[in-house]
Structure formats: structure tokens, C-alpha cells
């Protein structure tokens, strides 16, 4: 059975659990697939390592955690060092190029990098939507859900007043990833 595994990792407060939830929601509510989202985090509210895992499948999902990861987002160097070990050969690794400077040995993974947080700050206008920029990028790179369905999931998950901001963040992330991986 098809089983696609994504991991969003970084530090607490970067909104990566939210990004994982929206990806899973896009798959299970809008794309008609099945999805499970889980997370692990430390006791701190901010800082500390944080990861959110999403399993997407056409059929029922038993084990809810990652076994071998198809696509990994690493938003800190620590996360990149810690979580690439179970990334599949030929899997996708997306990193923030400003924060992750030491990349794992080339050849094994498809590595895509661009300055995610700075894109949110400078191109979108608010650093706080870096997670949605990253989500847009992950949607573009993984192809597990359509751009339209992912956008629907984003818009149904954010407060009314921030819809335009998040729409822009998602769209810029999506386009940047396509450009970076071209």
C-alpha cells in the first residue's frame, strides 16, 4: 500500500506542528486520502526541538509514526543533524539555507534549500508565516496533495484577518521551491 511519510522539524515556536496539521488536513479532508499527524516536543513552550510527522496513504494507516521518511523539512541545523538518519535514499530534504549550513553528504537525497525565514520576512512581510512558506514549498516538492487542496486547508486553518497573508506566504513558498528545485 502507498505510504508517504513527511517530517516537519525545527525548534519549538516555529509553527511546524501547525504546518504538519495543515498538510494532513489537506490530504484527509480535501484530497480524499487518509492521513495521520503526530508530534513530539519537549516540555518547553518555545525553543527545544520540535517535530511533526504526517503519514499520507490511499488506505488505512496503522503505525502513525515515521518508519523511513520520504520528505523532511529541517528548519534548524540541530533538526537537520538529528532527523536525516531515517530519510529514504532519494528522499527530499528541504532546509532553510540561512540556518542549515552543514548539509548531509550529497548524492543520497535531493536537497532543496532557500532562505525560508527571510523569504517570509522580506517577500511576504511577516516572519511569523515562515511555517506557511515552508508548507507551500513542501506541497510543491512532494506532490502528495494538489496546490488547490492545500490552499483550502491553509485558509480553513487560519483566522479570518490573516487569510491574505497566509495565502501569499503559501504561494511564495510554493513558487520558490519550484524555482529552487528546477
Amino acid at each position: 500500500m502507498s505510504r508517504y511519510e513527511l517530517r516537519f522539524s525545527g525548534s519549538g515556536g516555529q509553527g511546524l506542528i501547525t504546518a504538519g496539521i495543515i498538510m494532513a488536513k489537506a490530504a484527509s479532508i480535501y484530497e480524499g486520502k487518509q492521513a495521520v499527524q503526530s508530534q513530539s516536543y519537549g516540555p518547553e513552550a518555545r525553543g527545544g526541538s520540535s517535530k511533526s510527522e504526517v503519514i499520507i496513504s490511499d488506505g488505512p494507516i496503522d503505525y502513525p509514526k515515521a518508519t523511513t521518511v520520504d520528505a523532511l523539512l529541517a528548519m534548524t541545523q540541530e533538526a537537520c543533524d538529528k532527523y536525516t538518519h531515517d530519510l529514504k535514499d532519494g528522499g527530499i530534504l528541504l532546509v532553510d539555507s540561512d540556518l542549515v549550513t552543514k548539509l548531509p553528504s550529497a548524492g543520497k537525497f535531493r536537497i532543496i534549500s532557500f532562505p525560508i525565514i527571510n523569504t517570509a520576512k522580506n517577500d511576504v512581510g511577516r516572519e511569523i508565516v515562515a511555517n506557511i512558506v515552508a508548507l507551500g514549498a513542501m506541497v510543491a516538492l512532494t506532490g502528495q496533495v494538489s496546490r488547490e487542496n492545500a490552499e483550502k486547508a491553509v485558509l480553513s486553518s487560519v483566522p479570518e484577518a490573516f487569510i491574505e497573508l497566509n495565502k501569499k506566504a503559501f504561494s511564495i513558498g510554493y513558487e520558490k521551491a519550484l524555482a529552487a528545485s528546477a
Partner: protein
Amino acid sequence: MSKKVAFLQGNEAAAHGALYAGCNFFAGYPITPSTEVSEVLSAELPKTGGKFLQMEDEIAAMAAILGASLTGAKVLTSTSGPGLSLKQELIGYGCIAEIPCVVYNVMRGGPSTGMPTGPSQSDVMCAKWGTHGDHPAICLVPASVQETYDEVIRAFNLSEKYRTPVMVMPDEIVAHMRERIVFPEPGEVAVTPRKTPTVPPEQYKPYDTSFGDVPPLAAFGSGYKFHVTGLNKMADGFPTTKADIVQAEEERQVRKVDANIDDIVTFEEYLLDDADVVVVAYGSTSRSARYAVNVAREQGIKAGMFRIKTFWPFPDKQIKALAGKVKGIVIPEMNLGMCSLELERCAQGKVPVLGIFRVDGEPINPDQILAKIKEVK
């Protein structure tokens, strides 16, 4: 009309299940990893006239729900291991005074404050033996978000039907993971009402066994006056030390559950018909087990799974029957061997019981279970 769906966490589903079951009173004290239940109910209960109380601690929260239940409310508290320890005194009170209530406990690492954000299954014995004395115990262990919703409804129903506290115990993984859930329509799932007196107030006795092992319970404030105590009591609720009454009442309280095991115990059998090896699993661990069993089958090993959905009362009869059929039982659990002891008791030495015990805050993965399946000769 298509049904309402949502993408929810286990804890959020639990809160919505409680509302479906008619919960109109919640008292609790927030604790990771169960706080989302409080968050949802604090927003939802006031909308329908229900009451939400954040108490000063876990013991007070347990006391509050027992008191509220005696006024006819359908009540819930939620907590995690350290809170469950604190609630035990009053859980015993709920058992002896026969007060319906639901205790939702998310299992995290322990003992004491242990590992607040890590998963565990180490509270299952506490559900039965945590409070002292002989008493009935019902404990449900859901394995998915949908099942958490469904089982919280069933917990309310069982607590009303048997007039006793019922526990729902997801592990942290089930409580915090998110999945799609389909909400039943109103009336689609049966909701058990409380059995109330048919006699006038002057003839009412709260523990009148002429109405059966589960006597009707009047609501305080409805004109019925009666005595409630934690001491061994007579039919009218007042304390007694008369040997024959105490013996008969203790036995009746336990019999409420023991004589109705087939009505209470639920389980899932997966690929067991021709199985040589059975993995017995519960909660999130059963999801790893199903994965491992599927891989084992692909490799030509006749493995199956017995999934415990009701931990207490324990499915003795089913495990005894399995022990006579298979070559070995594998039990993965996130504790140092709790369910394992029950399985050994039921297996009576007929087959080996092989445990995989993990308490490091990480889930038991399918590879570990597959390796253990292969150890069964």
C-alpha cells in the same frame, strides 16, 4: 446529507464524544498531555448550559464531579498519571457510593511526574488497583481518534448502566495524534439514561437491591433525600458494620461488572483464524502490531493480532481460548510488563508470553514486534 467530518486530535475527539453522550458538567485540573479536553469543554459546555469548573487540584476535581453526578448531571474529569494518583481516594468513593462518572486519563511516563510529553501505557494497573479495597473496574483503551470519540460515549453509557466510575485511557500518542473523524448524527448512537426511582421519595432507598444489582439513583434536588457515605452502607445509605450486609454489598458491587463481562468487554480479532503467533496489543501499540503482523504474513509467518479494547474487565475467556490454539503470545507495551502479567495468568503456562517493554518515551515500532514474532518457535 453528508455527515460532518473534522480533522481532530484524540483529546479533542474525547471532548466532543462527551458532549454527544450528554456530558453537562466537567471539573478538572489541567495537565499535559490531556489539557486539550479542558480547552474544548471550557469553550463548548457554557454554550449549552453546561458547567465547566477548573478546580484547585485533581482531588477536588474528582470530588466535584461526584457531587455533580449526584444531582443528576453527566460528568467527566480528565487528567494524566500524576493526577490519576491523586484522584484515587475519590475514585474509590465513587465505587462504593456507586456514583456514575467518567475519568479520562491520558497515559504519559511515570511514576510521579515522570515524562510529561512522552507516551506510556503504564497506568493500566492503576485503573484497577489504584484505589484500595475490592471494587468494580471498567477501563477502555482506544487506539484511534474515532475510537476515542466512540469509547468516551460508551464509557458514559457503561457508567450509567452499572452506576460506577468508568475510565478511558488513551496513551499520549492516541491522545495527541490527529486523524479524520466522522461525527454521528444525533440519535444515531444510543445514549444510556440514568435509571431513576419509580417509588415516591418516602419509600426511596439509594441501594435497594429489590430493583436488581444496580439500584435506581435519585437526583439530589428532585425531592428525594438520602445519605451518601464512603463507609460500608445499608440499603438506605447509612453506615453499617453488620457482617452479612457488608459481605453481600461488597459482592454485589463487584458483581455489577463481573456478571456482565460479555456486555462490557470488547476486542478486535485480526487474522487469528489460522494464526500460530498472536500479538496481543492495545492503544497506539496495536497500530504498530497490525503493521508488523501484515509484514509477517507477507513473509509467510502465520501471525495475527488480538486487540484489547476493554482492558478492565480483562478478556480472560478470549485469551484462555487463544492460549490453547497458538504457539506463542507476543505482548508489546509501553511499560515494564503489566498486560503481560494478565496474559500469563490467562495462558496458565500453556504457551510462552514474550514481552516487548519500552519506557523510554518512544513508541514501540513494527520492527521490534516483527523480530519478537520470529522468536516464537
